[in-house]
Structure formats: structure tokens, C-alpha cells
């Protein structure tokens, strides 16, 4: 799959961009702060409906267009796609309106802490027809490489959960819908728990939301377990064969929050098998998972009522990578962490291709400069095999002449993009 044309309106520092794009490798070069990262962000946003750099989507609107007194500001991202299933167009609109409070209700992700005289909403379109936001996902699939990817290993669990969700949602619309429903039920259940903690609300409503949470949550547990197992196998292979020449073995373990306890890692409360092993053998058994999940929801209910929040469930999942049996996040060297995360990302590419029969679009922001020769060679081999890849660099000098020969180079300058076919660098 590849993008044939990208058009941006009022997105970041792009006032207006109409950009035909070729297959194969495109190198975006230019000075700092010109819009290279913003271009990759736009493509990523169309694939995932999220920005890798901000949670407040209103920031994506062009500053000059979004002047304070402007009553209506619309940002538009449109990509024409050539895919197995034919030609498609995916589009996202970012709409900021003045003085229309509350209309977008709960979808209003960023209005809450901003000045509330604005409402902000998003509108997704596929082939020029309005669709639900989640139906945009899966039309265009990308794998993004960032220098800070290594924080996936060293950072807090919410980043690792987001990684699972963003990746899975791109290929599994049912997962995406289940997740969205799960989050709504969780929000309702937590609101009720808070009310009950304050002595208001009806206790007899709680079982309703608990039952729904168990049904939806067990599907998420099951799907994540299968996903991580497949990804782990492939990552391990790449890491062992191509990155460490048979020297080191990584493992990736899913830590489902099926049981409650204090500190983030699930343990056995009774004489049951630990949930991280148990889930691997039971990933196909949704009913079994639902039963165990419902049981721990019942066990943790007194705690939940005290805290006013739900303490078990996929919203508190985690996963970890180990090398030779030790947690990479705590004990791995920087180099070991880099190799592991690279193996994971490359595995993601292969996994997507296996499932969909199509190579995802690769987005690499400044990552090449960070890698040593061996890792760089491996990554660039994947890039050159891809159907379409976008790389950014301030200095194209780091690429070999041979690599540049086969790539299309474009200069990014102050929110404009100039193809330079003869790559006169």
C-alpha cells in the first residue's frame, strides 16, 4: 500500500500543501524546524487518528489560521491511497468553532482545559463519506520509528498499552470497537464507584457495569495475548538472527492485569497459575478469561469502592521485554534496549504484512542517525524492501550514494516541500 497524494490544509506549519508522492523511499531533508516531522505526523495521524507528539489535537491546527477571533477554523488532512483493495481516499477534519459549547460532548478531547469558549471536534471521511472515527483506522497502515521509541521499554506502562492499541487498531476493527466500548463502560463504572464512595448512587447498578466490563475486557485480554505472542516470536527471531548474530535472546511477556494487588505486577492470590503464563495457554478461551476476570472483579470490589476506581482490567495491563531473563527496562544497556526495540518494530512490519498481505508504510523520523552501522544496515534493508517509506534527516550526507540513488529526495522548507529529482545535495 502507498500514498499517491497528500494534501494538508492548516495543519501545523502547513497552510496549504498539495504533494504527489512516489512509491519507494522518499527522503525529506531540510534545516531544523521546517516541517519534516510535521509531515510524518500528518501521515501517522491519518492512519491512527492520534498524534505521536501531542494529546491535545487542537494544537495541530495552524496557528496563523487559528487566530483567537476566528469563528470557524478547519484543518484538513487528505491522503489518496493505492492499496490491494483499490484506490481509496482517507480524510480527517479538525474543526474548531467558537461559542458552540457542549455540542460535541464527550468527544471533545481537548476543550476541557483550554479556554472553553471554543469547541473542538474531528470528522473522519473515507472515500468522501463521513464515517465514525474508528472506521478511519485500518484503511492506511503505518509503522513509525522515532528516536524516543526506546522509552517504550524504559517508560511508564501507559505508553506500552498505547503501543498495543494503536498497532492492533490498525489491523483489527473489531478490537478497536471493543476497546472503545470497554473504555466507555469503564468510565461509567468508575463514575458510579466515585458516587458510591461519596455515599450517593445505587449499589444495585454496579453489577450491570461489572458484567459488561468483564465481557468486553476478556476479549481485549484475549486479543492482546495473541498479538503479543505473535509479535514476540518474530521479534525474538529478528533479534537473535540479524541483530546479535545468535548471541542474545529477548523475550516479550504480556502482563495482563487479571488479578489485583499493590504494585503493578500480577501475582497469584490463591494457588492459581500466574496470570501471565495462564493467559498464554488460555488466549483462545474467552469464556475462561471472562470467568477469571469476573472473579477478580468481585474480589477487588471492596477496594474499588474505597478507591472510587476499577483496579483490575486491561486498562492496567503491561508487557515487558527481558534479555537473558532480566528486565530490559531496568537492567539492559542502552545498546541492548535499542536493539530490542528495533527488533520489535521490524517484527511489527512483518506481522502486519502477514496478516493483511500488504506492506505497511514506514515512517522514520531522524532514527537513522542514532543507530550504529549494523543496526542501520538492517533497518535500511527493510526500508528498501518496503512499498513506501518516508525518512527525515537534516543531513542527507549520512546516507550512502547508493541509497540516495534509489530514493526520491525532497527539500522541506518553511511549510513547503520541493522535490529535487536530481538530488543536488
Amino acid at each position, binding site marked *: 500500500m502507498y500514498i499517491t497524494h497528500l494534501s494538508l490544509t492548516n495543519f501545523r506549519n502547513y497552510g496549504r500543501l498539495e504533494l504527489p508522492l512516489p512509491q519507494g523511499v522518499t527522503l525529506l531533508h531540510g534545516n531544523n524546524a521546517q516541517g519534516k516531522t510535521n509531515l510524518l505526523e500528518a501521515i501517522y495521524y491519518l492512519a491512527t487518528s492520534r498524534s505521536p507528539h501531542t494529546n491535545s489535537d487542537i494544537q495541530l491546527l495552524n496557528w496563523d489560521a487559528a487566530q483567537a477571533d476566528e469563528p470557524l477554523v478547519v484543518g484538513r488532512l487528505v491522503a489518496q491511497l493505492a492499496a490491494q483493495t483499490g484506490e481509496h481516499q482517507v480524510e480527517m477534519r479538525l474543526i474548531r468553532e467558537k461559542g*458552540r459549547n457542549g455540542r460535541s460532548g*464527550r468527544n471533545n478531547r481537548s476543550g476541557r482545559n483550554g479556554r472553553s469558549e471554543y469547541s473542538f471536534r474531528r470528522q473522519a471521511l473515507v472515500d468522501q463519506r463521513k464515517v465514525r472515527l474508528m472506521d478511519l483506522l485500518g484503511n492506511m497502515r503505518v509503522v513509525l520509528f522515532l528516536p524516543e521509541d526506546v522509552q517504550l521499554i524504559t517508560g511508564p506502562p501507559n505508553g506500552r498499552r498505547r503501543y498495543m492499541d494503536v498497532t492492533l487498531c490498525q489491523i483489527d476493527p473489531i478490537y478497536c470497537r471493543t476497546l472503545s466500548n470497554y473504555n466507555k*463502560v469503564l468510565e*461509567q463504572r468508575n463514575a*458510579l464507584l466515585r*458516587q458510591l464512595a461519596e455515599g450517593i448512587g445505587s449499589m444495585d*447498578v454496579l453489577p*450491570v*457495569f461489572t458484567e*459488561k466490563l468483564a465481557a468486553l475486557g476478556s476479549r481485549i485480554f484475549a486479543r492482546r495475548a495473541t498479538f503479543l505472542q505473535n509479535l514476540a516470536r518474530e521479534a525474538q527471531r529478528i533479534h537473535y538472527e540479524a541483530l546479535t548474530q545468535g548471541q542474545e535472546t529477548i523475550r516479550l511477556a504480556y502482563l495482563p492485569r487479571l488479578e489485583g494487588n499493590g504494585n503493578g505486577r500480577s501475582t497469584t492470590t490463591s494457588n492459581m497459575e500466574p496470570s501471565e503464563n495462564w493467559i498464554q495457554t488460555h488466549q483462545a478461551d474467552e469464556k475462561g478469561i471472562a470467568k477469571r476476570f469476573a472473579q477478580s472483579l468481585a474480589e477487588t470490589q471492596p477496594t474499588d469502592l474505597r478507591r472510587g476506581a476499577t483496579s483490575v482490567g486491561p486498562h492496567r495491563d503491561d508487557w515487558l521485554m527481558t534479555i537473558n531473563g532480566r528486565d530490559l527496562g531496568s537492567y539492559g544497556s542502552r545498546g541492548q534496549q535499542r536493539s530490542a526495540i528495533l527488533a520489535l518494530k521490524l517484527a511489527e512490519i512483518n506481522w502486519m504484512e502477514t496478516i493483511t498481505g500488504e506492506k505497511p508504510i514506514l515512517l522514520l523520523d531522524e532514527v537513522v542517525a542514532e543507530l550504529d552501522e549494523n543496526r542501520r544496515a538492517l533497518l535500511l534493508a527493510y526500508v528498501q524492501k518496503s512499498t513506501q517509506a518516508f525518512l527525515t534527516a537534516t543531513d542527507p550526507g549520512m546516507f550512502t550514494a547508493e541509497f540516495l540513488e534509489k530514493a526520491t529526495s525532497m527539500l522541506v522548507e518553511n511549510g513547503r516541500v520541493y522535490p529535487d529529482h536530481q538530488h543536488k545535495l
Partner: protein
Amino acid sequence: MTTNALPQPVNRLITEFARLPGIGPKSAARLTFYLLRGGDEQALDLAQALQDLKERTQFCSVCFNITEEDPCQICADDGRNPNLLCVVEEPLDLLAIERSRAFNGRYHVLHGAISPVEGIGPEDLKITELIERVKNGHFTEIILATNPTLEGESTALYLTRRLKEFDVKLTGLARGLSVGGDLEYTDEITLGRALEGRREM
């Protein structure tokens, strides 16, 4: 859209219109100027209609539908099956089901759905009244026709638990209704089929 350049009564009406759902400041101004330019009669008719809306309507004390007379026409109609009860969220849902002509029983309007996030619990809905009605009535079947949204389905699940103790068959609408959608906006044919294919809960 309201400014000092306009007389206060004009500003006031614009403000009132703009508070209505689906109407922005521009449409509010357009409606106001339309009425301003039109004949006196039209504006007074509208004013009268608004007044009657509040003064001459009430909730039916049996089913809580909106009505001019209490009990409402449906509750007073002996021709309707007294053993069949259909529970809906809003009066507009009732209207939608009536339009489908697939149902000849009685109704109960809850006036909302359970949603702790919005602070709506069972005590804010006509649920006690429903239980009371079932206890004293002779219903053989109750159709829980809440919206196919998370809140609607949770409300149905809650009612299922509360109504289990009574000797009455509980059913829900068949799917085929667009999930996440509103009964109010469902076309008659789909709704008619969904009623026929209702399932036990």
C-alpha cells in the same frame, strides 16, 4: 451575534433560539429576523403554541408519556393488549414504535437511561413506577426497547435484574437496528422487523 446595535427584544429572542439544540447564533438570528418581518399573527401563534406546550401538557400518570389528558389515549384505549408492555427511554421512541404499527400493547416511558457519568441513576428514571406497575398488572411479556447504546443496554440489563422476580417473559428488540443509533431515527420497516424478531433477555 447579539449586539448593542439591536433593540433588546431582538437580542433576547436571538439568545433564546441559540440555546436550543442544533441552532447556532447564525440560525438564531435568521429565525428572529424572519419572525420580525412576518405578520403579527404568525408570531403570536408561535407564542401561543409555546405557552400551550407547557400549560396544556402533562405526563400520563400510568405510562409517563406526554399527554393532554390523563390517562393518555393509549392507556385509555381498551382495544390495546393489556398483557404486553413495551419500555422505552423517551416519548419520541414511543412515537417511533407507534409509527411502525407493529405493536398493539401498552407502554412505559423511562425518561432517560442510566448513566453515572451524567449523574443519572435508576432513581432519576420512572423505574420504581415501572416495578409497581408490573407488580399490580397482568403483563405476560415486557419488551425492553431501550436504545442500542451502551447506556440503553445497561438500563435494559438493570431492568432485567429487577424484573426477574416477576412471572413475566422479558424480551429485547432484535438487532439489525444500527448499533449506537437512536430508535427515534430508525425507519419504520427496520423497526417493525426488530419488534417481530425480539428476543428473550
